[in-house]
């Protein structure tokens, strides 16, 4: 908090908890201080939450990456026995689940949390404590999922049904280990996190915008993230239903997916892919948003066709709901559904193509500066194009009958998710790193990072197109000699290590750059001469974001405060970024106070999960934690009236307690007069 007058509460390493101010409310004191571990664990600051999303996701990225390497070692040569069939099935399942739910989605969430409030000129998200809750629910859910690898033996109990986990192979009869229980419950937990976060960010985007920041003045990234949140809002409950059914099938012998009891295994496929296809856009749209911010800055031109970019994103969001059955072209749907879904899938290529051409048109005639962020962004344009085009080839349903479930599909979706989503996220890292941490990442290391990653990526996944067309099935733990698979598998395996090296260099770059930054001048608020509001405050972003509210008059407001365009189209500078940006030194800004309760509540959920799998008594423990978290939350005013108030207290005109939820009206204990009605609680997480 920007309270310079108050001495910060310093934490000694190893000190379990900071000192807490006594609270009149009594129940428990609340955390305070803005340094030390505790200030991160209990923070409700959207920027710290965003950074933690990123750090935790990179931790899971390491796990998922090692799993990928294990897969590539196993497949490097025919007939390999580096992994047994049993282990291999678990490894590719956890690789998929980890990369999708614990890496790409949270990395996008990292950007969403950090940037949405900044880009719309808000102080924080609409519900800061719910924001902390979504982080911890997701993180504990992720740990719960990963724990399946260790619990009950090393690679004994991990899910082994693939991330798609088709019925009835996911039933107890075919997967008797506890792995798929972990999958079903773990994804429900992370789903709660996604849902809470989606509600929160939707309200933030719609309701917390700065003055004049109309929807069609929001940056493209915020737009794409908003669409992503809507997709999550509607897709998560669908997979939740499927996971409920699965859990009831496995734990209580229900009959949702058991063909021996007369049920239809395709129900799972429909529910899964009604979630699963919007999920693809959940993964890719944030990256589209990121590069829509990066490319204009390093082309020195505004984004080409802002509204078309936004509308094509919206169109993708809508059409993404009408294409799910293209994952099921060979599962025995009738010819009419296959034809319809084939057509709708081809249609969705149109708005995607529009985006690609708009990015190219943004670059056309610009001043292109190929630094690392720009290289990654242009990498997305090229690599995603390959993924998109191979996608068109299997939208052609008859061709898909030859391609589906082969390595051609593996190549396709890695070009989309790695070449599209992940490269975009790396572009974002390089671009916003100075904003978040106050120093730029080193360009020389960055270029090594980019080139190793792009070369390794193409070495790994390029040959998979060939392997797939040669007829190599997906999800096979080994293959025989004599089908022509040997060469390209070896190439792919070598490529995987090159990718690993590239990512390693990224990690090294963080530390190298941090060290070098000590000898460099501060980057200032606007190191790239950029366009969005997030650059209009100090770097790293002060805790209160902006000293005072920005009044927005157009898209790229910040840029237009720096530059003016003559009638003949020439641009001149009217101010520097440093002059326009706010210094970030305001004091006494009223901010939501940290809280234990989101973490306590979230910590209960994995225990409920373990309880359902192993021993119901653990559910009682988990239930108590959830109850304690909820009650603590309810009795705790969202704003702490006593903590962190500096010289002048702006309490009076500040009754925008962001976290308010009906249920809690109940226990509401207004901390002080009626002007600060702090009502809050969470819906007890459903299910």
């Amino acid at each position, binding site marked *: 908090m920007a309270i310079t007058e108050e001495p910060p509460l310093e934490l000694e390493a190893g000190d379990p908890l900071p000192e807490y101010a006594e609270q009149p409310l009594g129940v428990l004191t609340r955390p305070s201080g803005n340094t030390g571990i505790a200030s991160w664990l209990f923070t409700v600051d959207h920027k710290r939450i965003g950074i933690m999303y990123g750090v935790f996701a990179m931790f899971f990225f390491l796990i998922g990456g090692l799993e990928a390497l294990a897969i590539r070692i196993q497949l490097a040569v025919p007939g390999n026995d580096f992994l047994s069939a049993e282990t291999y*099935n678990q490894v590719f399942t956890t690789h998929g689940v980890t990369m999708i739910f614990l890496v790409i989605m949270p990395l996008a969430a990292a950007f969403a949390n950090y940037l949405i409030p900044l880009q719309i000129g808000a102080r924080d998200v609409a519900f800061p404590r719910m924001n902390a809750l979504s982080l911890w629910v997701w993180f504990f859910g992720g740990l719960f999922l990963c724990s399946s690898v260790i619990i009950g033996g090393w690679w004994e109990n991990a899910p082994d049904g693939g991330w798609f986990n088709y019925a*009835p192979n996911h039933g107890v*009869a*075919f997967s*008797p280990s506890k792995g798929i229980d972990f999958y079903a419950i773990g994804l429900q937990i992370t789903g709660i996190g996604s849902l809470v976060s989606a509600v929160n960010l939707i309200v933030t985007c719609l309701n917390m915008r700065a003055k004049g920041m109309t929807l069609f003045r929001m940056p493209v990234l915020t737009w794409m993230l908003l669409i992503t949140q809507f997709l999550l809002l509607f897709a998560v409950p669908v997979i939740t239903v499927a996971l409920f059914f699965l859990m009831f099938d496995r734990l209580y012998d229900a009959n949702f997916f058991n*063909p021996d009891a*007369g049920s*239809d*295994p395709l129900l799972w496929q429909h529910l899964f892919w009604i979630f699963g296809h919007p999920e693809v856009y959940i993964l890719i749209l944030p990256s589209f948003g990121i590069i829509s911010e990066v490319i204009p800055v390093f*082309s*020195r031109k*505004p984004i080409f*066709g802002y509204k078309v970019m936004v509308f094509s994103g919206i169109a993708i969001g809508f059409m993404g709901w009408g294409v799910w059955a293209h994952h099921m072209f*060979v*599962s*025995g749907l009738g*010819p009419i559904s296959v*034809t319809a879904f084939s*057509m709708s899938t081809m249609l969705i*290529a*149109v708005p995607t193509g*529009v985006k690609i051409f*708009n990015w*190219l048109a943004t670059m056309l*005639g610009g*001043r292109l*500066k*190929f630094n690392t962020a720009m290289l990654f962004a*242009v990498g997305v344009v090229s*690599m995603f*194009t*390959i993924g998109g085009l*191979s996608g*068109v*080839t299997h*939208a*052609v349903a*008859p*061709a898909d*009958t*030859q391609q589906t*479930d*082969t390595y051609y599909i593996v190549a396709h979706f890695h070009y989309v998710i790695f070449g599209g989503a992940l490269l975009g996220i790396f572009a974002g890292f390089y671009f916003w790193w100075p904003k978040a941490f106050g120093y730029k990442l080193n360009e020389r290391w960055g270029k090594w990072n980019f080139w190793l990653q*792009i070369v390794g990526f193409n*070495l790994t996944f390029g040959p998979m*197109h060939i392997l797939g*067309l*040669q*007829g190599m*099935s997906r*999800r*096979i*733990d*080994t293959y*025989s000699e*004599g*089908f*022509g698979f040997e060469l390209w598998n070896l190439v792919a395996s070598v490529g995987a290590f090159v990718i690993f090296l590239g990512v390693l260099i990224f990690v090294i770059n963080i530390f190298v750059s941090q060290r070098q930054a000590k000898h460099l001048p501060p980057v200032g608020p606007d190191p790239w001469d950029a366009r969005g509001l997030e650059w209009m405050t100090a770097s790293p972003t002060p805790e209160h974001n902006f000293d005072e509210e920005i009044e927005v008059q157009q898209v790229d407001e910040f840029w237009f405060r720096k*530059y003016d365009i003559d009638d003949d189209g*020439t641009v001149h500078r009217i101010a520097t970024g440093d002059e326009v940006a706010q210094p970030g030194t305001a004091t006494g800004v009223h901010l939501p106070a940290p809280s234990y309760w989101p973490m306590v509540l979230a910590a209960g959920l994995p225990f409920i999960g373990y309880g359902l799998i192993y021993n119901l008594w653990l559910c009682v423990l988990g239930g108590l934690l959830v109850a304690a978290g909820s009650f603590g939350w309810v009795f705790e005013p969202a704003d702490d009236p006593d903590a962190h108030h500096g010289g002048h207290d702006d309490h009076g005109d500040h009754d925008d307690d962001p976290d308010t939820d009906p249920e809690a009206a109940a226990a509401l204990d207004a901390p002080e007069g009626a002007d600060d009605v702090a009502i809050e609680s969470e819906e007890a997480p459903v299910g």
Partner: protein
Amino acid sequence: MRRLRLPAALLSVVAFVAGCADDAELDTLKPEGEYSEQIDNLIDPIFIVAFLVFFLILGLTLFMWAKYRVTEYEEGDWPEQVHGKTSWEIGWTFIPFAIMAAIGAFTWILLSDLNATEANALPIQTAEGEVMWDPHVVVVGQQWWWEYRYYFDADKLEELDDANGNPAKDLPPADIVTAGQLVMPIGEEVELTITSRDVIHSHWIPALNGKRDAVPGRFSPWKIQANDPGLYFGQCTEFCGLSHSRMRMQAVALTPEDFQEWVTAQLADAETPPGAEAWLEAYRAADGSEVEAPEATGAQRGLVAFTQNCASCHLVQGVNDLTYDGATQVSGAAPNLTHFASRTTLAGGILDLYNPDGTLNRNNLESWLRNPEAIKANAAPERGMPNLGLSEETIDDLVDYLETLGPRPSDEMIAATQVD
């Protein structure tokens, strides 16, 4: 940006490499039947269009890299601030749309072709005389092998759907039941009805047509056709558990004459090793009369060992058909061994049954009987063949007996197989 050419180079060799590899038996771009040719004819031009679009975009990117890149920004060096150009945007909305519409139209046409079936009549001599057969095979997947059932009486097919629970576990008795190899006449449209006894599998012979999932509780129609006699490789392509990678199959396309010969042989009961007839009769009658088990030849001892060790799961028509009541497996089925030695592979299409010189591959068969789990990971005994702990003598005898379950396949077929 130079290195961005790499993926392009890689991609451009896709069709070339995939199309030319000599030993790529699963190659999707080497069609050998009418339907796979239709698919190939549709997708090849689409690949070309896709390559053109990719090169266009890559080319534009490289062009801009070459033309517009700067190393450092100079103050005041700003290009024209273009916010958009409606005509361009309409252009690149409409042109992709038009391309997609064209692809969509061809897709639509081919889809209706591939889903249509015609009524054919192939004369087949059966025990009851000649029947007109509309070539049709019921394909049943289970962990981790394929069963092929032939019904020469079309009325039987009507009964398929008639059960509570999973109907694939209660199929009407078929004229011919075989495993691992789908034998079919060339030139004919062979309709498939695909289902599964346990989890979802996918039946795929790339040279003859695309794939179709075997979904338990459903009977999915599909069709294949082969232009020339030969052996066409396939692989289960829907992840189906532990040994998904070891669930393979072959389509064996025969001339109509050879096919008739095959049918005639398959319709017969299994041969009894000479000298074991009396014992077998007593075994079948199970009337308590004591007939001493014949021990003169390995095949005789093997028959006895079969009834003791294998008959609870495997059926040999003419031996244990009177008492056989399905296998004690989750799927309720194990491969029918009546004419085991007339196939060229075993263990779900992954091991050769014959050496290239035409002799029985005793080594493969013995190691399979010795410890199947070492060759094919499974969850025996519920799913997959268990290790029965057979003695070496018993294994020898069983191999001798299994070899008698012919007739032996043709030398061409043996030469064409050689899968491991």
